[in-house]
């Protein structure tokens, strides 16, 4: 429904642009865990929490011309750049969206400044936040062997989660 589309557009307005589908997936998930009012349903997949609903919603927004998706080649691989379009900006100005702009903007900008690899780690740690700290690290290490996260990255992850929760 349109309010949920508008929230993704508000995210792109706050961040100006997001580069990479994985990064966008993780930003929305972490935002949701920080009680930003995103509604997308997530399940656990290869790179951690993933929302099919968000993937489809991005396609819909592109189809409606409200956001742009640009496929770019960089160092032998490609990535997607998402931005709000002119029509999207105009749509958002008129849309009566209930959105905590003051709280959301610094959180989303901070998340967008991180690497996709780090956001994958943080989102996976948050996925298991019902477990103890040691159990979370064991589960992440078990499920993400190929990423080979170092102890200092886990430490950085915990600190970052704490800083986000205090914002």
């Amino acid at each position: 429904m349109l309010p949920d589309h508008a929230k993704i557009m508000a995210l792109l307005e706050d961040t100006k642009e997001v580069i990479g589908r994985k990064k966008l997936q993780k930003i929305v998930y972490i935002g949701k865990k920080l009680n930003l009012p995103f509604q997308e349903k997530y399940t656990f997949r290869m790179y951690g929490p993933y929302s099919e609903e968000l993937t489809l919603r991005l396609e819909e927004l592109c189809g409606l011309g409200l956001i742009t998706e640009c496929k770019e080649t960089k160092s032998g691989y490609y990535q997607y750049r998402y931005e709000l379009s002119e029509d999207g900006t105009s749509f958002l100005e008129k849309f009566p969206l209930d959105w905590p702009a003051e709280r959301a903007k610094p959180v989303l900008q901070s998340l967008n400044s991180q690497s996709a690899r780090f956001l994958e780690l943080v989102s996976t740690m948050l996925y298991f936040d019902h477990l103890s700290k040691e159990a979370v690290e064991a589960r992440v290490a078990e499920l993400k062997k190929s990423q080979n996260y170092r102890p200092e990255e886990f430490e950085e992850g915990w600190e970052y989660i704490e800083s986000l929760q205090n914002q």
Partner: protein
Amino acid sequence: MTMPVGNKKLPEEKVFKDPVHRYIHISDELIWDLVGTKEFQRLRRVRQLGTTFLTFHGAEHTRFNHSLGVYEIMRRIIEVFEGRPHWNGDERLLCLSAALLHDIGHGPFSHSFEKVFNTDHEEWTRHIILGDTEVNTVLRRMGGDFPQQVADVIEKTHPNKLIVSMISSQIDADRMDYLQRDAFYTGVSYGHFDMERILRVMRPTEDQVVIKATGMHAVEDYIMSRYQMYWQVYFHPVTRSAEVILTKILQRVKDLKNEDYPFKYPPDHFESFFRGAITLEDYLDLDESVVMYYFLMWQKEEDAILQDLCRRFMNRRLFKYVEFDQHFMMNEWLRLQQLFADLGVDPAYYLVVDSSSDLPYDFYRPGEEEDRVPIHLLMPDRRLRELSRESDVVEAISGKKRTDHKLYYPSEVLEEPGQEDTKQQIKDILHLKLGKIER
């Protein structure tokens, strides 16, 4: 892994007659006892396709039938895998239990329900498997950590990715059952594919199920079935209309509760959902027969909106729709909302945009850089190739339009006498600007 302590065979095999798979075979005491738990029996009272029975009258089948079907397909996949590299026979009961219980947390009309009450059936699946339930008691006979392992497979967080992919991937036991079962019960002619052939060409690898290249055409058929079922059944606009009304009923009840409205028929079974403090017992007590009872009674409520929405749902007086696309943008929609309000029709309940992303089904899409693991073909030289790179048929439908939006509204209010000018303006927006015919 050692053989679980509670692994016993039944004295003789039990069978369920099934219209899709002919027979469902049970030889393990564990599986038989899980089927007999009250939490599994509850699935008889939760329809597999929610409101689809209002479009296809045969679609009255339940999560119970489907769960048994997924179990049966899993059992047959395991038969194919026995003795092959990467397959560990000790995981058999874990796979069968996960297949049988994968939908145990579904509630009544769960898609609409989850949206309004912010619940998650996957979370309830975990609670039912790990909590104080009959299911948990039966599973624990296999060892203390067995329930947790089953929950992890269903949640896709089990470290054995092969097992996870058998129940949840682009070609898994779950999808292969629901496509065939939904086609059978809706009576549509699409949705059929050669499952026997697919089962014969499935091969286990270290981290996923792959398909022998010689079975590509059977998989093409499966992908086409999925594509057709998506548009013809799962996305049917009439079903979506019923789903919109159902969601709005639940939304209205929630809003009335917040306003301390004096219900003639108080929603006692929903109380803990309003408070956001749902116990396992509350959750399990709410099935579709309970929800339908309330809808029946709320037709007699004083609140005009709740009464009207319930009458619409019970008597299949659904909303009409028009396509909502890029030619029908924000200005018109906001204006329509104002015009509906001018008529005294609350647009929050009677003017609804429904999008493809609001539905819990998806197409096959090649994985690219995303989280979805695509279907891989095992080539004669042992290399793996993504399906759409080998199949022209799959490549052709992979890039097709996969989204749409519809605007639902009660058309009959536009035909009643009075406020002709306002109604004409609404009709102009709905029919003329769009250049589309009202359905």
